[in-house]
């Protein structure tokens, strides 16, 4: 059993990181804030996958690497595996976690895009949720990139508390 810290340490650190970038540094530039948050996740994912694959043979193909993310990697981070994996066999993978831990504490519903989004408190809330999701997206992208797979990762939360991560491998 490896070393552990309380879950609230990680939760509070992430909350504080997101709020620093969104509210203090880049209050009016959400896309810059998002990029920084994703970059932090990327760094973490890259280092974690380096550590977790140290004693493994290389993965034979993309699917094997993705399966590693769904099983071993996800279990290390969340004590559970990804619940559902889909692929179109052309480089797109959808990893669904039915109860994504980092969202279970957020009480926001995603709002469908509305034209006058900026003043609506609900859309502010959903914007905050999506800011939080840049971090795990970055983690997945960093982990795969360490395994030699360049990709783009986005998150879909239309079925809360389930969260789907869409991985598009770059060819």
């Amino acid at each position, binding site marked *: 059993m*490896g*070393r*552990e*810290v*309380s879950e609230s*340490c990680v939760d509070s650190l992430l909350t504080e990181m997101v709020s*620093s970038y969104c509210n203090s540094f880049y209050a009016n530039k959400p896309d810059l804030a998002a990029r920084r948050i994703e970059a932090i996740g990327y*760094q973490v994912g890259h280092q974690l996958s380096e*550590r977790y694959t140290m004693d493994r043979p290389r993965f034979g193909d993309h699917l094997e690497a993705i399966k590693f993310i769904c099983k071993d990697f996800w279990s290390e*981070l969340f004590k559970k595996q990804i619940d559902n994996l889909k692929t179109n066999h052309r480089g797109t993978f959808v990893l669904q976690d039915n109860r994504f831990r980092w969202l279970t504490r957020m009480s926001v519903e995603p709002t469908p895009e509305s034209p006058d989004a900026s003043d609506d408190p609900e859309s502010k809330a959903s914007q905050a949720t999506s800011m939080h999701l840049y971090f795990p997206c970055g983690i997945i992208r960093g982990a795969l990139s360490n395994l030699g797979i360049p990709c783009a990762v986005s998150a879909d939360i239309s079925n809360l508390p389930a969260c789907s991560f869409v991985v598009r491998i770059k060819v």
Partner: protein
Amino acid sequence: AIFASVERVNAELFTLTYGAIVRQLLTDLEEVEEVNKQLDQMGYNIGIRMIDEFLAKSNVSRCVDFKETAEVIAKVGFKMFLGVSASVTNWDSEGTCCSIVLEDNPLVDFVELPDTCQGLYYCNILSGVIRGALEMVSMKTEVTWLRDMLRGDDANELQVKLIKQVPEEYPYKDDE
């Protein structure tokens, strides 16, 4: 036992996330001094929220004085959140200033500071957390680093100085 009562997660995730945040802050804020300030501020914000969880879950009874408070932070607080315990030493004669010494600190696992980071208090978030948490229980403190393992010292030592104890204000007033 206290650590067994909270939800726990992989410490590597925490350690590496903290490291990545510090690194990104160094890039974005450029000045080491600004990063120190930002980490302290983030810690403060965390501390003022964490105290609630601490009081709710730790079952500690009211501390009679600052001495007891410091012991509780070191023995119960650090244990509950970081899974390590710290010790309290170097009390001044008035009992208002002491050191919290942390020999084992998950924040600095796998960390080595390059020369370009001189002046960085890497763990400055911790001092912020303590300051924020104590402020919520009516104690204004000043928290400074005396020893830092990342700067070659043999332990992490935080000096906690009680500046003033704000008397508790009761929320009720006599009706007019």
